[in-house]
C-alpha cells in the first residue's frame, strides 16, 4: 500500500508509456560505469583489509603451531629442497613446507606438519605436532573444515577426541576404532556419529606421515633455529635474541 509513493520513474521524460528505448550503447556505458565504480570500491576494501587478514591468518597458524607442539616458544618455516630441510621466510608458504618448533634455548623440539584431505563434506586442513625422537604425535589442530555442525565438527570441538592426539605413537600406523574398543596406544576412539570425520582426520595424519617422515633429517641433525632477520613478521616469536 505504501509502495505507491513517487511513481515518477523518469521526471525528465514526461511521457513514460511511450518512452523511446535508450540506445544500447548507453546501457552498456552505464553498466560499465557501475562496474567500474564497484570495482574501485572492492579494490579499496581489499587493500584496506588485506594487511589485517594476512596478519590474522599468520597469527592463527602460529598459534596452531605452538598449540600442537607443547613446550615450543619459537618456530621457523622449513622447506624441502634437494632432499634437505631449509629454513625459509615465513610468507613463502607452499605445499612443501613444514614448521620446526624450538624451545627457549633454541633446541629443536619437534615438527608441526600440515596435512589436508577429504572429510565428510569438504577438505579438512589440519596441523599436527610430531616429535621425531619418540615418534609420537603430540597435538592436532583443525585449521579448516566444513564438517556437519553438531556431529562432524566434534573433530575440533570434542576435547576427548582432540586429546587423543596429545600422546599418540604413530607406529605401525594410527588406527580408528569404535568408541571404547581401544586396546593399544596407536588407536584413537572414533566420535560417535562422526566416524567418517574421525577416520578422515586420522588418515590425513597417516598420509602426511608417509610422505614426510622419510624425508626428515635424522634425529639430532635437524635444522637449527636461524636468527631471523626479517622485519615484516610481527615480532614476538619470529625474532630470537642472541
Amino acid at each position, binding site marked *: 500500500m*505504501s*509502495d505507491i*509513493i*513517487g*511513481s515518477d*520513474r*523518469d*521526471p*525528465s521524460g514526461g511521457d513514460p508509456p511511450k518512452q523511446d*528505448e*535508450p540506445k544500447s550503447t*548507453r*546501457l552498456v556505458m*552505464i*553498466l560499465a560505469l*557501475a*562496474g567500474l*565504480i*564497484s570495482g574501485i*570500491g*572492492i579494490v579499496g*576494501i*581489499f587493500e*584496506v*583489509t588485506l594487511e*589485517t*587478514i594476512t596478519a*590474522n*591468518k599468520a597469527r*592463527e597458524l602460529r598459534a596452531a603451531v605452538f598449540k600442537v607442539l607443547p613446550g615450543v616458544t619459537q618456530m621457523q618455516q622449513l622447506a624441502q629442497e634437494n632432499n634437505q630441510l631449509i629454513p625459509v621466510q615465513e610468507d613463502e608458504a607452499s605445499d612443501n613446507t613444514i614448521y620446526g618448533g624450538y624451545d627457549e634455548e633454541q633446541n629443536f623440539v619437534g615438527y608441526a606438519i600440515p596435512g589436508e584431505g577429504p572429510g565428510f563434506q569438504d577438505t579438512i586442513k589440519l596441523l599436527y605436532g610430531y616429535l621425531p625422537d619418540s615418534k609420537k604425535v603430540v597435538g592436532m589442530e583443525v585449521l*579448516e573444515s*566444513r564438517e*556437519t*555442525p*553438531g*556431529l562432524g565438527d566434534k573433530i575440533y570441538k570434542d576435547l576427548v577426541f582432540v586429546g587423543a592426539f596429545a600422546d599418540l605413537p604413530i607406529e605401525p600406523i594410527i588406527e580408528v576404532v569404535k568408541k571404547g574398543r581401544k586396546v593399544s596406544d596407536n588407536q584413537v576412539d572414533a566420535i560417535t*556419529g562422526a566416524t567418517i570425520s574421525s577416520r578422515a582426520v586420522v588418515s590425513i595424519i597417516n598420509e602426511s606421515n608417509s610422505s614426510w617422515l622419510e624425508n626428515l633429517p635424522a634425529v639430532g641433525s635437524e635444522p637449527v633455529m636461524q636468527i631471523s632477520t626479517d622485519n615484516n613478521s610481527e615480532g614476538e616469536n619470529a625474532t630470537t635474541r642472541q
Partner: protein
Amino acid sequence: MLLLGNSEDYEEFNKGIWRDNPVFVQVLGMCPMLAVTNSAINAVAMGGATLFVLVGSSFLVSIFKNLIPKQIRISCFIIIIATFVTIADYTLLALVPAVHKELGAFIPLIVANCMILGRQEAFASKSTPRLAVMDALGMSTGFMIALLSLGSIREIFGTGTLFGVELFGPAWEPWVIMILPPGGFLTLGLILLFFNWMTQRKAMFLEQVAEAEVEGSSQ
C-alpha cells in the same frame, strides 16, 4: 505497536518488523535463514551483514533511481548489492575471523538473497533515500528478529547453550536434529504456524471490534 505510527518514517520502518516481516510474512531469504541459524551468534552476524548490505544498497539505489535505465535496473541493483556484500565479506574476515569461518559461503550468498533484491525493486527504486533507508532498516530488523528467534531456539535445544553460555548443565542431552537441516525446517514451520495463528486471531479480533462498533452506532 502499529497504532503508534503517525509519521511516514515510522510507518516504513515498522512494517518490516511485523506486518510485512520478510521471513514470517513474505517468506523471503530462506537460504541464509535455514543455513546459518544453528546458533544465535551466527544469526546475529548474518543479520548484521544483511542490514549493512540492505541499507547501503537501498540508499544508493534510491539516489540513482533516475539515472538507472529501466532495462538494466536488475543488473545495476545486483552490482550495487554485490559491492556491499564484498565489503561486508572482507570486513568480517578482517575483524571477526572466527565468525566469518562459521558463516563461510553464506556471506557471498547474501548477493542472491531475494529479500534484498526485492526491496530494491519494490521500494527503494521508487522512493526517496530517506524512506528507502527507513524501509531497509525496518526490513533488516525484521530479518534479524527472525534469524535470532530461529537461531536461539535451535541453539538452546540443539546444543543446550545460548550465545555459547551453558544453560542446562552436563545432564542435558542435546537434540542434535535441531542444529541439522531438519531442525531448521521444523522450527521455521512451527514459527510460521504461530505467526499465522496470531495474524488470524488479530483479524478476528478486529472484525469483532468493527461489528461491535457498527452495532453501537446503529443503536
